[in-house]
């Protein structure tokens, strides 16, 4: 596909959805290669933003453009996007290698070359030789690494991570963040991740989108976001204003 070099990786223009009485509307531009943290209170619309980009949710109005191309009418699998959730990224009845292999062929018709690619990807996330293991025998952090290996073989330019570290303990979290930072640097992907921890922003993010009540409230470089004193919801997120009570 022709990709104008200047086109942003993601452009949302008044992409609007209605859930009963709730209305969500997103406007933002994410440059290619950015590492963007998406923060905000629960229920503000962070996952919905991801659903709109990934094609799981179709906006009633507005536009979704990825690399300058209008995504209207494109199925999730036809978009340049890979997704990782907090959990359940792996099918428990498939081996680790098959779970990664799904990223090459979703019907699992894998030839020797494809098998080799999955093995290489597994080695890159530190899982060489784990091909025949089942996800059930792995820890939460290990399962997320296998999911990352799938992202590697799939090789799509946008990566959406929906709270990828939320279920992990602090040490595993730091390891995962380091691995993710490394993959981001090496593969020049555009990466968005939802987080509730300012710590993750410091580790990984170049930009921060803060979402409140269905809208993108602030869009800053990471350092500027971390220095913010307002609006109140951001100050609260950063732990600056414990007296603030969300309305």
């Amino acid at each position, binding site marked *: 596909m022709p990709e104008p070099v200047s086109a942003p990786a993601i452009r949302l223009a008044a992409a609007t959805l209605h*859930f009963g009485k709730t209305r969500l509307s997103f406007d933002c531009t994410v440059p290619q290669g950015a590492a963007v943290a998406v923060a905000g209170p*629960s*229920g503000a619309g*962070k*996952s919905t933003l991801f659903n709109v980009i*990934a*094609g*799981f949710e179709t906006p009633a109005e507005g536009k979704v453009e990825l690399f300058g191309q209008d995504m209207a009418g494109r*199925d*999730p*699998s*036809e978009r340049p*996007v*890979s*997704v990782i*959730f*907090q*959990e*359940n*990224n792996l*099918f428990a*009845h*498939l081996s680790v290698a098959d779970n990664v292999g*799904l*990223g090459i062929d*979703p*019907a*699992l018709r894998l030839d020797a070359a494809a098998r080799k690619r999955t093995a290489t990807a597994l080695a890159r996330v530190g899982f060489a030789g784990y091909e025949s293991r089942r996800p059930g025998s792995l820890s939460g952090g290990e399962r997320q690494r296998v999911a990352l290996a799938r992202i590697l073989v*799939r090789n799509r330019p946008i990566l959406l991570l*929906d*709270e990828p570290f939320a279920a992990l303990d602090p040490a595993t979290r730091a390891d995962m963040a380091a691995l993710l930072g490394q993959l981001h640097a090496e593969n020049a992907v555009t990466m968005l991740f939802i987080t509730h921890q300012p710590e993750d922003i410091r580790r990984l993010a170049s930009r921060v989108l803060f979402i409140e009540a269905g809208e993108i409230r602030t869009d800053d470089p990471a350092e500027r976001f971390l220095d913010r004193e307002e609006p109140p919801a951001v100050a609260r997120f950063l732990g600056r204003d414990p007296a603030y009570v969300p309305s």
Partner: protein
Amino acid sequence: MFSRAERKGLRLAGGLTLGFVLCFAGVAAAVLLGHAESGDGGPLLDPYLVRVARFTLWQAALSTLLSVALAIPVARALARQRRFFGRVWLLRLAVVPLGLPALVAALGIVEIWGRQGIVNDLLHLAGLDNPVSVYGLAGILIAHVFFNLPLAARLMLAALDRIAPEHWLTAANLGMRGPALFRLVEWPAIRRVAPGIAGLVFMLCATSFTIVLTLGGGPAATTIEVAIYQALRFDFDPPRAVLLAALQILMTAALLGLIALIGRPDEEGATAGRPIRRFDGRHRRLSDGAILFLFAAFTGAPLIATLTAGLSADLGRLALDPLLHRALATSLAIAFASASLCLLLALPVVMTPRLADRGGTDATTRFLARALPATGSLILLVPPIIIATGWFLILRHFGDTTRHAPAIVAIINALMALPFVVRVLEPAFRTHLARTGRLALSLGVTGANRLLRIDLPALRKPLAMAFAFAMALSLGDLGAIAIFGADGFVTLPWLLFSRMASYRTADAAGIALLLGFLCLLLTLPSASAEPETKGRGNA
């Protein structure tokens, strides 16, 4: 989680329950064995017995195969199409056969598939002159599929809905389509529950009595249970009935053992969290619509036929029929007594084993904790017809069987409902105890106080559901009553059966409507109160 006095009380109640059930079944069994010895010593397994046993297993195997295989496309279509007009009603329709008396369903199926039914009319229009005969193997299979296809489809749908919602999103993101989605996501989930479902359906079909009695045709299509009934009521040949009963118990024991190995299908629905969203439904709306329409027509048509045939009966005359009044009163009285007894037996079966939840109990408690759940399921091993046969042989020594028969029928019906009632109450009580056990004990709310103020009010809903279900089961059943039914002892199913047997079809249709209505009134409110996943709930 129990005080010392409570432990004592529960042990006593458990002991009494165990004693009552074992004595009641034991006496019947002893009498049967006594008659076996007095038999004429003919060949143990004559060709007739072999044929009956073979047909019993053969029709059950075919019924199971058809029900489970046809349930797969239905469950997949329902799981895939999450939003369409009438989805909720289709799910409710799938629950209806569960509460419908077999006798009523059999009548509805004859209306649709019989010689004058709509199916044969359509076949005739299509130029086929050989009508489908509803009597014999075909009718038995249709009826068994009518009951078990919706059950199997619901259990499979629950299994599909238990798949993590993220998996459907991941599959859509990766571009997994039709066949690959089935092979890699749906089939593994169905395969896990299929053996349990098949075991359950096989057991239900192998011990099916009413359907085979009404739709089976002659000696070529007879199951063991029906053969027992015929041996007793037509040939009056107790030794043969006993031989058949022994064969039946051997078969059910083997089946129960097999099912215990396989494990039971889990009926729980999806866990909360992300709503399930399917992206493969859009392209298959037409084919899924066709599958679901056929399913709705197959399940719904006999119900509609029952309704229309019933309404066109001379209901005014029926309403004034004193025999119908007597049958209705008898049926309601037996159903009420039977449901009450069932709950009385179920409470110790559910509560007493909890005494052994934490170690350090005495041998008596441990024994009760093991024996009581088995007692609750005794009727699966020794079917109602067999216990009824035993008690029939006893009562006939005391002159007119109809004097004591109502009590016996009520007890047998209570035992018949016991496994289902225990299945409703057991998880509810377990959760309740985990929630309130410690608190009640620490506050000193124990004994009758606890039962009346905490346990019964908190368990009101499952108890009401269990009671209604036990009542409906007793109301609609043609099992024990088939052995005891007589001019002096008439229940609604027995009256309906006699009207069918004497070809008074219009009367039969009217009675079937009344019986079906009563049973669904009791079972549907609780059965359709399944949790629906709603709202958009974030992760």
